[in-house]
């Protein structure tokens, strides 16, 4: 039984780690601006495209990876300044629409540049290699992802809890207006948030696309949406929540894809129901259920209405 489930678990954990890195960007931005940054998934995709072009230009790996992360951070920063900052006092719906607009723009821009053809992602030595673990063949990246994710998350939590900017971020997410009155430079805090989120999405994109080696303009949409679901599932605004949520969703999704065969091997069925079909639908069903049962997510804090 374990032998049947193990390969699914392994990929589930890897996918979960990649979702987690994207989900952090969502959860941090939401924590501060109360905005679903619909463009975040596309920033993730753009990071992938950048890597394709930068590696194609012949730069060595140790320059191109930092360069990709730097450019991704810059994109996150610019998006915030252009598309969200002018709307700070506008109704929330306007900002969200702006986010959808940015997502649309990024996708179309990439479509134009790549000609709508899928680009194969450059192979990165070491992490692209195949390994065998407990008799299951997989890529090195599958093993590295969860470890790297945890390391980055711990670093981030330390940053938030121990540094001045981290304190400012916490204050802003608690109470936007008051912290502004307290003299916190809101715009800087928000920019930093976007930069951190984008860099993590950049790291996520390197891991993700090394695993699934094709980038196309729509590559960011689904992982983005799922990462957001993960963020909501874990309790939006909470970084550990987002990470836990992402791992749960990654694992569940993969188990469902293999559910037919797991049931088959367990002797429960002998026909195929095509349950794998519902791997994506399940994620959204999970979202709706969690929102109904516990709207604040697993680790979310309760927000009381004011009258």
């Amino acid at each position, binding site marked *: 039984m374990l032998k049947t489930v193990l390969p699914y678990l392994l990929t589930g954990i890897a996918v979960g780690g990649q979702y987690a890195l994207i989900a952090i960007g969502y959860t941090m931005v939401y924590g501060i601006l109360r905005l679903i940054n619909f463009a975040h998934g596309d920033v993730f995709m753009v990071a992938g495209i950048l890597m394709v072009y930068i590696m194609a230009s012949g730069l060595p790996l140790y320059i191109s990876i930092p360069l990709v992360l730097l450019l991704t951070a810059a994109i996150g920063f610019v998006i915030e300044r252009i598309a969200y900052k002018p709307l700070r006092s506008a109704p929330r719906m306007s900002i969200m629409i702006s986010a959808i607009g940015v997502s649309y723009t990024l996708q179309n821009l990439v479509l134009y540049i790549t000609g709508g053809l899928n680009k194969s992602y450059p192979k990165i030595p070491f992490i692209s290699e195949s390994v065998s673990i407990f008799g299951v063949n997989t890529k090195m990246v599958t093993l590295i992802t969860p470890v790297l994710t945890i390391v980055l998350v711990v670093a981030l939590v330390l940053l938030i809890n121990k540094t001045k900017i981290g304190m400012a971020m916490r204050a802003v997410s608690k109470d936007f207006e008051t912290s502004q009155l307290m003299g916190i430079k809101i715009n800087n805090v928000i920019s930093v948030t976007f930069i951190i989120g984008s860099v993590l999405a950049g790291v996520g994109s390197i891991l993700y696309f090394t695993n699934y080696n094709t980038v196309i303009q729509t590559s960011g949409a689904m992982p983005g949406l799922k990462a957001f679901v993960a963020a909501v599932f874990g309790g939006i605004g909470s970084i550990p929540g987002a990470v836990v949520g992402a791992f749960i969703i990654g694992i569940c999704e993969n188990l469902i894809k293999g559910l037919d065969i797991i049931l088959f091997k367990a002797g429960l069925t002998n026909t195929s129901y095509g349950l794998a079909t519902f791997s994506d639908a399940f994620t959204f069903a999970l979202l709706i259920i969690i929102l109904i049962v516990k709207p604040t997510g697993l680790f979310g804090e309760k927000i*009381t209405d004011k009258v």
Partner: protein
Amino acid sequence: MMKNTRSGSYAQPQEKTVKLSTVLSALVILLVYAAVFVAEQTLPSTSILFTVLKKGATYALVAVSMNLLNGFTGLFSLGQAGFMLIGAYAYGILTIPVEQRMNVYQYYDGGIVQFALPVVPALIIAGLCAAAFAFLIGLPVLRLKSDYLAIATLGFAEIVRTIFQWDKLGFLTNGSNLLREYPTFNDFNIKGADGEVTLYLSTLVPFIIAGVCIALIVLLLRSSYGRAFMAIRDDEIAAEAMGINLAKHKQIAFCVSSFFAGIGGAMLAMYQNTVQAKAFTSAMTYEILLIVVIGGIGSVTGSCISSFLFVACSEWWLRFLDQKQMIGNFEVPLLRNGFRLVVFSIIIMIVVLFFRQGIMGTKELPDLFKPRRGGKKPKRSVKEKAEQAKENAKEALQAEEQITLTAAEAAETGAAVAAEAAGEEAASLKDKAEEAKEALKEALAQEAAAAAEAETVEGGEA
């Protein structure tokens, strides 16, 4: 106590202009329909103009139905594509002629449904199916706040898409395969005995269907229920305190919107000649949302105008951007496949960022025919207004000062955490801050407006 020189005399002319502008609007709409009818009889029926008009009419209905939710009730729902899908499939499943079913359901032995309904009942059932799904999903999700609702409805649409593609339901939905051979817009053309079309109605009919549906939505918006929806949009808490049952009214708005989205989906099915669940993605919802935004959130007229503009631009006028163009021997740079979409998305971003009101803001067609009020105001009231504004500003400033002080106090005792725990105090504090800020903004705006007005009046006199 509030004696005013304009008292009483104001309401009367208002009533009259309302009537005049309504008549004018009706006239304009009538003209549009007449133009469509005439164009269809005179221009070649294969002109792309009609393709665009058909899709425009379809999208107009869907956009208005989305506006009913997002713009008038303040419910940010992103499930429109899902409800359209339900409508489109319901229509297709119910209207495919029996003799064609073997052909269409080629992998499912002709499917389970072995009858065909006429178009109009099928359209209504399509709407009802969408509304029924909306009712079920609305029960749990409508309690959610704005962006959670958005993401939940988006997820719902994805789930619906998956279910409709599941091959185990193929006997009903034809699984991943297309539904086709059902009556489309072209079947509305009236043909003579020789098979030649004698009267072209394939564009007018979608206009009529969309027109009737939009008219029903407008009637709803003008009714007491419409006012309740807008009250919920403006202030949920106050609306509830004024006796409006939030759950019930949100549910009504959601179901009505989905009903018409379902009909819109059925129209889209007629336009596309085929239905395939694959096409009803969240990208479609975003497209409709952008139409609503460009037209003006909270304006039915705006949604209609912008849907035609959007469809015409994206699928007709801007197509030349996708191909190399030569001006003489000079090849215009940048033009190649995909450029159209880039230009298009930049236009959208400009609208979203700089013209947030969209084309119409919250204005409707009749508002365009009303005389502008600004110019008529006597000079005195301008000055009064300016003074009032200044006073307001002063007050607001004082209020804000006070808030800063109290906020500082709060900070001393443990900053935001304490403030939140303090329940009422925090709430009132924040509200005051908001109130003051708003008042200040308003006051400043009023002052500026008043000053500007005063200037123009004075300038005019000089």
